[in-house]
């Protein structure tokens, strides 16, 4: 790393350290009540202790729910999106309905799902998958709809069969959009998983932090929040790396 870059990292880390120091001072000196703001040490201790205990299990449960839902959402979203996207006539009939569903909060489906399926893990997974499907579906439809017209003509000249066109031209063309949709979808999966755990009392980080707050155990609450932040960060970072690899052809 050049000097300038290391300098930047050090500066940035310095600011972060300063914020942590501020946190330490505020909580230890009691400027903010320790009921809401636990000390950094207490949080770290809760985190360490929790990971040796239940917290690890809760984290895995939430991550598992998030990933399972996201995978289902992606597979169905791409399949349905491709089916709708390749056909301009289907798109014309269905697109307005899709635009209505787009702004709907995924969590809003939870009461309906509870009504139908009851309070159980399957219900939460269903809402996670169903809610997270729409960004991928919409992105896929858009990706397929926006095929460069010149490429369609090339396909006609080469007499590329329909299925081959979808697989070799439609899908790669839609890939940047699909990947962006999948990233958004991951964010939604995490959110719905957490909310679902909170209201359906399912074992996981969502329920854990809710209970911690109700019992005024602030350090456990903060530990849980930190873990959720970490999950959000890691999942996004991994997807970003995958996206870069898959879209190598877009150039530097």
């Amino acid at each position, binding site marked *: 790393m050049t000097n300038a870059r290391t300098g930047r990292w050090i500066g940035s880390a310095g600011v972060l350290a300063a914020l942590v120091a501020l946190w330490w001072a505020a909580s230890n000196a009691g400027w903010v009540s320790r009921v809401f703001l636990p000390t950094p040490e207490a949080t770290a201790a809760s985190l360490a202790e929790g990971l040796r205990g239940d917290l690890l299990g809760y984290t895995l449960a939430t991550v598992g729910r998030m990933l399972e839902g996201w995978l289902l959402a992606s597979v169905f979203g791409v399949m349905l999106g491709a089916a709708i996207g390749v056909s301009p006539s289907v798109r014309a009939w269905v697109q307005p309905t899709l635009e209505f569903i787009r702004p709907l909060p995924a969590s809003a489906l939870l009461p309906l799902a509870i009504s139908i399926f009851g309070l159980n893990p399957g219900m939460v997974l269903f809402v996670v998958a169903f809610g997270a499907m729409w960004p991928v579906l919409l992105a896929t439809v858009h990706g397929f709809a926006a095929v460069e017209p010149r490429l369609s003509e090339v396909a006609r000249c080469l007499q590329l069969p329909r299925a*081959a066109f979808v697989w070799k031209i439609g899908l790669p063309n839609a890939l940047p959009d699909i990947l962006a949709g999948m990233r958004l979808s991951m964010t939604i999966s995490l959110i719905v998983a957490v909310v679902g755990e909170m209201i359906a009392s399912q074992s996981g980080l969502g329920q854990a932090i809710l209970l911690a707050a109700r019992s005024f155990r602030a350090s456990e609450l903060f530990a849980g929040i930190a873990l959720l932040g970490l999950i959000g960060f890691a999942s996004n970072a991994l997807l970003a790396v995958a996206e870069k690899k898959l879209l190598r052809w877009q150039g530097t």
Partner: protein
Amino acid sequence: MNAREIEAAAVLSIDRVSIRYDGREVLSPTSFEVARGEFVCIVGPSGCGKTTLLRAASGLVVPSGGEVRRHGQPMAGPSREVAFVFQDYGRALLPWRTVEGNVSLALEAAGVPAGLRAPRIAEALDKVGLGRHARKFPMQLSGGMQQRAQIARCLAQKPELMMMDEPFGALDALTRQGLQDELARLVREDGLTVLFVTHDLEEAIYLGDRVIALQADPGPGRPSMARMIEVPIPRPRDQLTTKEHPEFLRLRRELFAFIAHGHD
């Protein structure tokens, strides 16, 4: 028609083809034939319908009137025997595939089994001089190289006819000249029949055996095709001496005058 008649019939017959768009007649009834191995250039001012004519000749567009025939059979749509080279090469290549991958597409479409593709791809790339750049992505290539990649893809189709829509229009003069000579050599080697649209009169005379000049808005009842001239200059041609050849200069003067004055 029996086999011998089909053989004898022209490779391409444009029979009173006319095209209308939004109620406007973009191309008035035009007729000509192209024999095997001929290099026919089409020139004309913008709006004369030369690109539209090319697209109709390749089956991409259905004529509003008249018929396009190949070996005596009416043309129903695009065919693998008729390759099309687009002017906007950047948009005609798959950006996510390498040069190799793009050429491969033609073979995949034709159902060539995977094992047999590599030699044919290599052959096509060598013909256009892109052998060393096979693994590059279009984004990494210059304009001239991208156009060569597109031509390689068309060659891989092993077509009978090659339609070219102002293929060198977007390139700088030096690249254009190089590609013109390469194209002439390729066409001669493979015995291709070419229909070549350009707005560059010199290019048309330099490359063609025949030049067809179209006029824009000829008026009701008048044909779009205003001139068809033979180019009796011997091959192989070269950028320096051919352009000083008296025939070349004569034809150039004739075409320039015709285009400048609009109508016949």
